[in-house]
C-alpha cells in the first residue's frame, strides 16, 4: 500500500478517535478504578474522591483537546491548512494541555506520581504552543502571498 498525505491524515484521525475511546472508557470506569486503586494498589484510604475528581476534571480539557485536533485534521483533509481557524484549534489544544498539566500538578498533593503526568501534559502544551506560533507565521506569509497580484 502506497503511503501518502491523505492516508497520513486518516491515520491521525483514527488515532484521535482511539484516544477518544480510551478517554470515554476512563471516564466511565473512573469511579470503580480509583476506588480499587486506592484500596488495593496504593494503600490510600480516603483519597478516592480527590483522585476520581482529578480524573473527571482533567478529562474536560482532554475532550476539548481531542475535539480541536479532530476538527483540525478534518480541515487539513479538505485542503484548508494555513487558516486562522486552524490556528485557533492549535491554541485551544495547547491551553488544554497546559490546564491538564496544572490540574495534575495540583492533584499531586494527594498522589505524588501525578507530578509526572502534570509535567508531561505541560511539556506537550509547550510543544503545541510553539508549533502554533510557527503556524501563525505561516498563515501571515500565506496571507501576504494571496494578496500579491
Amino acid at each position: 500500500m502506497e503511503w501518502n498525505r491523505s492516508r497520513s491524515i486518516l491515520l491521525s484521525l483514527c488515532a484521535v478517535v482511539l484516544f477518544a475511546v480510551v478517554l470515554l472508557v476512563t471516564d466511565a470506569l473512573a469511579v470503580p478504578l480509583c476506588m480499587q486503586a486506592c484500596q488495593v494498589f496504593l494503600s490510600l484510604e480516603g483519597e478516592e474522591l480527590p483522585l476520581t475528581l482529578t480524573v473527571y476534571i482533567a478529562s474536560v480539557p482532554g475532550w476539548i483537546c481531542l475535539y480541536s485536533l479532530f476538527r483540525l485534521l478534518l480541515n487539513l483533509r479538505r485542503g484548508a491548512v494555513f487558516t486562522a481557524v486552524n490556528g485557533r484549534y492549535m491554541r485551544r489544544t495547547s491551553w488544554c494541555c497546559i490546564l491538564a498539566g496544572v490540574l495534575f500538578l495540583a492533584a499531586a498533593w494527594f498522589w505524588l506520581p501525578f507530578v509526572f503526568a502534570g509535567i508531561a501534559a505541560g511539556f506537550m502544551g509547550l510543544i503545541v504552543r510553539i508549533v502554533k506560533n510557527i503556524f501563525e507565521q505561516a498563515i501571515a506569509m500565506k496571507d501576504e502571498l494571496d494578496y500579491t497580484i
Partner: protein
Amino acid sequence: MKAVGAMIVVNLDVMMARRKISAGELAERVGITPANLSVLKNNKARAVRFSTLEALCRVLDCQPGDLLEYVPDGKE
C-alpha cells in the same frame, strides 16, 4: 478627509474608462482572475508583481505612474 497611513493607490478605474475596457476583458487580457483584479482595484492588494504591472501597462497602453499613485500619510 479620513486620516490613514501612507499608501500606494491603484488608479485602474480611470485608465479602464479612458480605454473603454471592462474589468472582465482586462482581467482576461492581463492573465489574472477577475477576483484578483477586484482586489487590485479596491486597493486591497499587498504587493504587485512586475509581470502583472507590465501586462497592465501593455493592455492599457500607459505608464506605471498612470496606474500607481503615492498618497502621503494623513490624506485619503
